[in-house]
């Protein structure tokens, strides 16, 4: 079952502060993602992998084309959807793990993770229990659960971020270098979690710089080519 | 008395005041502005009450004037004499004989009748004046019946003192609509205003406001369901007549701390003593 399909997707940036120069990044891109499969984006640095991810999430506004996402049984075009629809799709269907943790300051790690479940109406204690379990699995010790992650190490912050991404069980997951600053042990946990998600039918698009991780989770590669070279 | 119109005020002024009174009766508890006149006594001595009394008084009326319940205090005596001279009306100290009663700070103990009018002297007609300094705003609050602020004041009293601390000029809701100052009568008197058969008129001379409670009008003292209004009095019997149902004044009788609680309503006290004496004989 197709979960996500980009059709003739283009994206560029017009920099008004630099005299209105236009930088095209993606042009006429087609991409299909099925349930239970993991597609790894490949291509040189600067080719537009992150831009593609952010466009698929609706974080960047698509310049042209369609981004169809299976949401509540129907295909919704995120490139044309109104903001409230995009929020609803993100809430239920489309999860995203970014490279950096950007969250409300001074909120304990466990609450940051549980928040996603509480937002869906799950009782707070139960949500915290699930969140704590996930943090533990990602080797965040209980003594850190009650602390805001601002003071955590880069790897710990990324694992909190991963917990936030995985706790919702979204049918589609976008993973932007999920293992970048993790040690071997934690990388193994993340690989395990990705494989479990796939087994549940989750459709995943990822950017994996780590070749070992990519080989262990990706079903196929999707080449993003720099436009300058393609032209 | 020559040189004065009946009741001192000229007829045009009385007409103007009567119109204000009619409007006040039509909108129970609502403050009606009127063109208060200079009177031959200072503000604070009952100029508002006198103008209302002068406007409702006819030659056949019998007038009683009390100050803090007493007929024989300076203020009461001089106002009573003022109308005896300028209107030539009969005066009395007996509540049941009077057709018009002007009062400062009390309601007579004896139940009033439909053919009587009670005129209150009012120093500050605006019940919200201490809470909201802007007159424009208090007017707006009345217009919108937005009285949460007064309820907050009662809340604050209970929160900090355990009970509402207002012992006189206790605010009332008239006819379920207007918040009203009953003038500085003791809270003990508030229940007497509710459903009173007599017409109640209020005159504030300095503030130039008249308001009214028509006969048999609903008048409720503000309170909370779980802290209901209670009319309190000194827990004594009157030292002269033995009454246990009247409002009492505390009188210092000597230099050695001797004290006596007596009825503040002198006519009520005197008539009770007469009845007791008559029964004894």
């Amino acid at each position, binding site marked *: 079952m197709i979960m996500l399909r980009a059709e003739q997707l283009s994206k560029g940036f017009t920099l008004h502060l630099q005299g209105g120069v236009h930088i095209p990044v993606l042009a006429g891109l087609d991409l299909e993602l099925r349930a239970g499969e993991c597609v790894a984006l490949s291509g040189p640095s600067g080719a537009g992998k992150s831009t593609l991810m952010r466009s698929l999430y609706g974080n960047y506004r698509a310049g042209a084309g369609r981004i169809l996402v299976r949401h509540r049984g129907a295909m919704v075009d995120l490139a044309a959807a109104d903001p409230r629809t995009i929020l609803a799709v993100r809430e239920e269907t489309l999860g995203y793990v970014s490279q950096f943790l950007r969250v409300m*300051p001074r909120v304990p790690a466990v609450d940051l993770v549980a928040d996603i479940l509480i937002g869906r109406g799950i009782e707070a204690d139960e949500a915290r229990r699930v969140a704590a379990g996930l943090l533990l699995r990602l080797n965040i010790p209980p003594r850190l659960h009650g602390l805001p992650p601002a003071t955590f190490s880069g790897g710990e912050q990324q694992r909190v971020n991963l917990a936030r991404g995985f706790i919702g069980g979204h049918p589609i997951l976008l993973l932007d270098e999920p293992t970048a600053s993790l040690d071997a042990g934690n990388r193994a946990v993340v690989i395990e979690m990705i494989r479990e998600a796939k087994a549940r039918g989750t459709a995943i698009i990822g950017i994996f710089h780590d070749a070992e991780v990519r080989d262990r989770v990706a079903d196929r590669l999707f080449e993003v080519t720099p436009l300058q070279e393609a032209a | 008395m020559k040189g004065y119109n009946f009741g001192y005020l000229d007829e045009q002024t009385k007409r103007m005041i009567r119109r204000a009174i009619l409007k006040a009766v039509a909108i129970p508890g609502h403050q009606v502005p009127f063109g208060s006149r200079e009177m031959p006594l200072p503000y604070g001595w009952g100029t508002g009450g006198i103008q209302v009394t002068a406007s409702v008084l006819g030659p056949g009326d019998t007038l009683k004037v009390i100050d803090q319940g007493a007929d024989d205090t300076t203020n009461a005596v001089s106002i009573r004499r003022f109308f005896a001279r300028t209107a030539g009306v009969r005066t009395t100290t007996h509540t049941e004989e009077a057709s018009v009663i002007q009062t400062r700070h009390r309601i007579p103990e004896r139940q009033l009748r439909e053919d009587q009018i009670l005129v209150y002297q009012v120093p500050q007609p605006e019940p919200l004046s201490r809470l909201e300094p802007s007159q424009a705003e208090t007017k707006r609050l009345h217009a919108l019946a937005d009285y949460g602020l007064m309820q907050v004041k009662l809340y604050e009293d209970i929160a900090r003192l355990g009970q509402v601390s207002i012992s006189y000029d206790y605010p009332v809701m008239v006819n379920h609509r207007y918040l009203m100052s009953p003038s500085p009568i003791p809270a003990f008197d508030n229940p007497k205003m509710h459903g009173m058969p007599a017409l109640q008129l209020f005159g504030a001379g300095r503030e130039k406001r008249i308001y009214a409670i028509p006969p048999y009008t609903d008048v409720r003292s503000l309170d909370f*369901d*779980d802290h209901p209004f209670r009319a309190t009095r000194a827990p004594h019997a009157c030292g002269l007549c033995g009454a246990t149902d009247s409002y009492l004044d505390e009188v210092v009788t000597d230099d050695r701390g001797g004290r006596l609680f007596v009825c503040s309503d002198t006519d009520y006290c005197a008539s009770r003593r007469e009845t007791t004496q008559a029964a004894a004989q």
Partner: protein
Amino acid sequence: MNEPTLVSARGVSLAFGAIRALRDVELDLWPGEVLAIVGESGSGKTTLLNVVSGRLRPDDGAVWYRDPQGVLHDVHAMPDPALRRLHRSDWGFVHQNPRENLRMGVTAGGNVGERLMAQGARHYGDIRAAAIDWLEQVEIDPARIDDFPRTFSGGMLQRLQIARTLVTHPRLVFMDEPTGGLDVSVQARLLDLIRTLVARLRIAVMLVTHDIAVARLLAHRIVVMQGGRVVETGLTDQVLDDPQHAYTQLLVSSVLQA
């Protein structure tokens, strides 16, 4: 997604003499949605807040509000009593300076209870219980219920103002720079509190702020204003991460990165 809007502004314009404070502004707000109005001083964002809340009358255009029964009201055609009733029940206002909203001579409990009493609550015990509950919700020690606000810190005052506003469970709260003038550490706690309460009670918020970080943390959608005009509007992270309009790009690029 066809849920009807809570508030809609259409073609709203307002001039102060030669200054065109608002020019043909359109705006929609849905139930439970946090909408941030950003822009620099003089962009018209506070004027827009005042027009939408009925405190200022526009020269042109209209603001529509849908009441809980689904009836639409032209905010500026509402009789004064109805608008005031709205402001003390279904709507709330959180000012930058809590002293504008709080009664400094009334205890914390009285401040929280006032809106309930204005709505006719007449049970002292219930009012007090509600006040205690709300002090706890905004993380003020309930033991301070009988203290005067003047003994409170700036952050506490702002939280007290929020308790006082939310006690009647309004559906729509207007916030004008709610975290302005507070220390950064106090700001963070307040932001989290606002975000949690608003989400849990599903309150729609129209939030005016010049602080883009505040908009990012609280708002679902964002409206960028410049010179009385809406120059860009959309999903908060999209507008801030991929700004389209020159002014928005300037605004976003001017933010100091912590």
